[in-house]
């Protein structure tokens, strides 16, 4: 059950990341289209392409394991780094005063919310934003640095740290949800076992009695009757084992006030005798 939930979660993450890729890149192109900046347009096109690919994978693959989803996610994010680098280079080339690395801050938080639970890829995807901001900052000339505020790296680094904390908090939440789903499944399993036991006891009792009657009324069938009785007795003992399993289970909690047929979702009352 939890595996299915996780896979559905991975589909949603890839779909959202793909949509954000397409939307963000198109916004950049629309905003600066009159400048016809080749690196900017190329990285925007790559970002849109990666976004379409992520959406395609999310919509077409029936099952998405964590590792595979994480690599697709990373492939969708890689062009975003290029786009941000190209945007900063382009804005710096304008020769006007500007505030760099603001998209890095928002992007690192977005990754924290959307990154799949494959930890090393999630952490890498977040950390690359402040790292690339730092690399680009140190590539600026003194003349270029005069066009930006002092200490522009503080915000991307702080947002990177916040994003990491947020990401780990999210992973912890996913882990707790997984344990809760497992507990729910075990409770359901225990109730089903007890319901099967309840439904089986009367037929087993009838078999034990009928085997004895067969033996008494038809002595020539004694061997057959004995085999039926032995098998029915074994089934009865198995039922007692199930009973002790239900009692010992931590997931049982003593809540056995249920209708056995309803628990097993049996719609046809004639298919089973009533539990008794």
């Amino acid at each position, binding site marked *: 059950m939890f595996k299915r939930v996780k896979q559905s979660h991975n589909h949603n993450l890839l779909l959202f990341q793909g949509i954000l890729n397409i939307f963000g890149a198109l916004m950049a192109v629309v905003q600066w289209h009159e400048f016809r900046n080749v690196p900017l347009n190329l990285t925007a096109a790559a970002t849109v392409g990666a976004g379409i690919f992520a959406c395609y994978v999310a919509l077409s693959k029936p099952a998405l394991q964590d590792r595979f989803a994480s690599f697709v996610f990373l492939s969708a994010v890689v062009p975003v780094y290029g786009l941000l680098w190209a945007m900063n280079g382009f804005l710096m080339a304008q020769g006007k005063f500007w505030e760099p690395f603001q998209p890095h801050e928002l992007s690192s938080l977005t990754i924290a919310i959307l990154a799949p639970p494959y930890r090393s890829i999630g952490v890498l995807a977040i950390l690359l934003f402040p790292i690339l901001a730092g690399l680009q900052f140190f590539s600026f000339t003194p003349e270029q640095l005069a066009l930006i505020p002092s200490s522009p790296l503080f915000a991307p680094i702080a947002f990177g740290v916040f994003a990491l904390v947020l990401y780990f908090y999210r992973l912890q939440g996913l882990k707790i949800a997984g344990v809760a789903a497992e507990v729910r499944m075990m409770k359901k399993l225990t109730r089903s076992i007890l319901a099967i036991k309840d439904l089986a006891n009367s037929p087993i009792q009838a078999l034990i009695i009928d085997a004895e*009657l067969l033996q*008494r*009324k038809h002595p020539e069938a004694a061997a057959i009757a004995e085999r039926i009785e032995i098998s029915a007795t074994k089934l009865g003992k198995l039922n007692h084992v199930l*009973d002790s399993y239900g009692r010992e289970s931590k997931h049982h909690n003593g809540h056995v006030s249920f209708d056995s047929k309803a628990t097993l979702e049996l719609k046809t009352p004639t298919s089973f005798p009533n539990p008794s």
Partner: protein
Amino acid sequence: MQKILLVDDDKTLLSSMGEFFEAVLGMKCILLTGLADIVAQEAEILDRDVKFAILDINLGQGQPSGIDVYQWLCDHHFQGKCVFLTGHAKDHPLVKNASLMKGVHVFEKPLEIDQLISLIKGQPLADVQAG
């Protein structure tokens, strides 16, 4: 002739038990599936010849339980001995309630043949204790 009252909503088991007690112990059995049948056959059930009653605890979803049947028998001064027979786990609320009733024992299905005979003959047999 001594008689046994058997109450169970599983008609197959009811028939098997009835035939068994008649064949093995020579006792006539009154086979009923619920409280409504008991009320309808009040005179026969309260007859002094009915020495024993085996009551299934759960008589079907939404139906009066074996405990209700037992209560009815007590209210109508039933002279025989009563026992409960159940397929439920001992911590089922109905089984717990039945275990708390005075002067009546609860046994878990399936019982072996020797145990069934001992039950009717009033010989000691381990019963279910309320959890």
